[in-house]
């Protein structure tokens, strides 16, 4: 009897363990929806969504840090409870992809990168178009958003998300080096090339130019060179990265890095590139304005007080930097409480909150906020006119606007990398890459 009792314990434990495993699997589909009970809210008119819970997924991004302390206000105002989860960029995309593939109703609202995954998410039916919502409330003033920022979040003429962070490519330069050499801030790409040549002095550990050199990351930063020379990745439904203008732009960018860049630039994305700029070893650097703190924060930069900002230099077609929405808010098409979710998006992207997040250094997309003096307090005074100027003439994408963005970026990036590794027949490389991009675009049409 005693013996069998022991066995029972063993069997019981086994069953328990198995049950836990099974239960763990089943729990994944649970959603956190609709906890509202009708009639329990006393002020049903003022707070139509009281008692509802929505879930928000954000990236680990300064915008998320700025919005989190403001959430209690929203919860008090509307009675909607907001549950927040945050992830690193790449994990965020993977988490969302997996969750949406399984048809999950959560998260209700999420941060996403419109130009990287927007088209894929939208075409897969994971994103709720927001056109009707955005026009419901006149106070929301949808037309206040910058046109190119909205262009970034628009897919197939439908509004896929609301811009929260905008970005432009600008020119970072070393004020002290330019002054010493008596060079004025380059206004054109030709000026830039000449100035880079003049300041390039590797013997004294000063390199003329740095920017992203890694295959996929460089694509967004070469895009402004492309537009300013009058080219684009695509033209209608044709790939256009082998036109003379495009080849010229790729060659300029690649040659600057090859001949006047620091060693190892082929393996640099923005953290390495701005890192070496902040070490005081480079005269010029082009990248997004949004990462400026890495160059101006004295704890990260040895040249914090010597960094100047300028509008992207002009090419044959003028100065045409990208002016894009790098992060947006979108709604899950499977969300169980879309109206409450929109209430949140409306609040988070309304004038009042955009001002507050922008003051924390998150460049928003609302013109009215930029026009207010207090809207610019989050940025260095010298940078504000550069941002305003760049936002005027900018292009609304910084990479090929296709579904398979990753694949398209690799095709484009290879051209520049070939320039950097000394390939002389760039036209042939560009022709081949153009074919690859065309194939990607043709495949998109079948979806």
């Amino acid at each position, binding site marked *: 009897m005693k013996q069998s009792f022991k066995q029972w314990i063993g069997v019981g434990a086994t069953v328990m363990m198995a049950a836990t495993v099974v239960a763990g699997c089943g729990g994944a589909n649970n959603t956190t929806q609709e906890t509202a009970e009708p009639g329990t809210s006393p002020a049903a008119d003022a707070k139509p969504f009281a008692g509802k819970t929505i879930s928000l997924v954000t990236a680990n991004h300064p915008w998320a840090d700025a919005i989190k302390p403001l959430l209690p206000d929203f919860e008090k105002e509307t009675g909607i409870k907001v549950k927040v989860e945050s992830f690193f960029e790449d994990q965020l995309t993977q988490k969302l992809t997996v969750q949406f593939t399984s048809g999950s109703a959560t998260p209700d609202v999420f941060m996403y990168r419109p130009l990287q995954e927007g088209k894929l998410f939208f075409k897969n039916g994971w994103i709720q178009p927001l056109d009707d919502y955005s026009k419901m409330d006149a106070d929301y003033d949808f037309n206040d958003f910058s046109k190119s920022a909205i262009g970034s979040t628009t897919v197939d003429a439908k509004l896929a998300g609301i811009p929260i962070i905008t970005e432009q490519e600008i020119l970072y330069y070393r004020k002290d080096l330019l002054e010493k050499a008596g060079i004025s801030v380059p206004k054109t790409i030709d000026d830039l090339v000449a100035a880079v040549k003049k300041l390039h002095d590797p013997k004294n550990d000063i390199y003329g130019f740095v920017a992203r050199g890694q295959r996929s990351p460089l694509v967004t930063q070469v895009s402004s060179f492309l537009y300013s020379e009058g080219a684009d990745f695509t033209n209608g439904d044709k790939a256009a990265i082998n036109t003379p203008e495009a080849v010229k732009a790729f060659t300029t960018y690649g040659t600057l890095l090859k001949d006047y860049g620091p*060693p190892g630039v082929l393996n640099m994305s923005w953290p390495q590139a701005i890192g070496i700029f902040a070490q005081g070893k480079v005269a010029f650097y082009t990248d997004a304005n949004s990462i400026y703190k890495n160059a101006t924060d004295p704890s990260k930069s040895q040249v914090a007080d010597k960094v100047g900002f300028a509008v992207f230099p002009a090419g044959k077609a003028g100065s045409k930097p990208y002016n894009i929405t790098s992060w947006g808010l979108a709604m899950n098409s499977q969300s169980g409480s879309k109206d409450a979710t929109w209430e949140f998006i409306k609040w988070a992207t309304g004038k009042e909150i955009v001002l507050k997040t922008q003051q924390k250094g998150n460049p928003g997309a609302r013109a009215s906020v930029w026009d207010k003096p207090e809207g610019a307090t989050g940025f260095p005074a010298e940078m504000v006119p550069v941002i305003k100027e760049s936002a005027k003439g900018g292009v609304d994408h910084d990479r090929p606007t296709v579904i398979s963005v*990753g694949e398209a970026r690799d095709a484009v990036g290879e051209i520049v990398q070939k320039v950097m590794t000394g390939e002389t027949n760039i036209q042939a490389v560009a022709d081949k890459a153009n074919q690859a991009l065309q194939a990607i675009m043709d495949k998109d049409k079948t979806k």
Partner: protein
Amino acid sequence: MQYSWFNRNLKWIYTLPAVCFVLIMMLFPIIYTFRISFYEWSMSATSPPVWVGLDNYIALLKDERFWHATGSTFLFTIMALALEIALGVAIALLLSREFKGKNIVKTVFLLPMVATPVAMGLVWMLIYEPTIGAANMMLKSMGLQPLLWLASPNQVIPSLVIVDVWQWTPMIALIIMAGLATIPTDPYEAADVDGASAWTKFVSITLPLLRPTIIVAAMLRLIDVLKTFDIIYATTQGGPNFASETLNLYGYVLGFQYFKLGMASSLLVLFFALVMGLTLFMIWMRKRLEGAS
């Protein structure tokens, strides 16, 4: 009555959770991957997977990038494995002697193995940084030309091999040390009587007796080196210009950056077959060698 049923079937009941785990977490994904490899699927909710037969495999076999990745995988594996075995055996021989502080040395020596690979990847990236990195600083102080390391298409694989060797030689050494402990002492005594030199003893006694252990160590390491992902992804993401893109990395890119789930699955099926084939070959070789000795 019931008790005796449990008594009789106890071994099945106790192993059930483990069997369930293997079935659900290992066998199912493999079978599912195999199935998906015949479909074209981009994880879309609106367009379901489309049956394309062998198209994915044909496209892969025609894909330059696939063959380049295969080449890189083999180059990386052969270089890393050869160095790790040679160094591992040497270090094991060294550490099998008695000396003061042996245990401390042994412990310190095993540290790279327990370090987090991605964190180590980032550290190595800094070491290899051409302008401010420690590797070039060392070369310069010895009066040598600095190298580009990870940023050069030609140097990137050897650079990654160094990281892998640094991290995984301790594992080989550990296994070899266990093997050394099992070698009987009498052959050495006999050799001493015959007046054999240290080198002769090593080549004619130690190595042959150690051979089964070396093969086991090589086999374990081979499977792992082929699958190396973490350090490459953390340092170069397959660059510059695909120069360090191995099969595993290409599979990841296809699946999670290009969202070509079908193509990624077919690559993984081919890769699975390759690893399986090599492993079976090693097992067969080991049996043959054991039979011969």
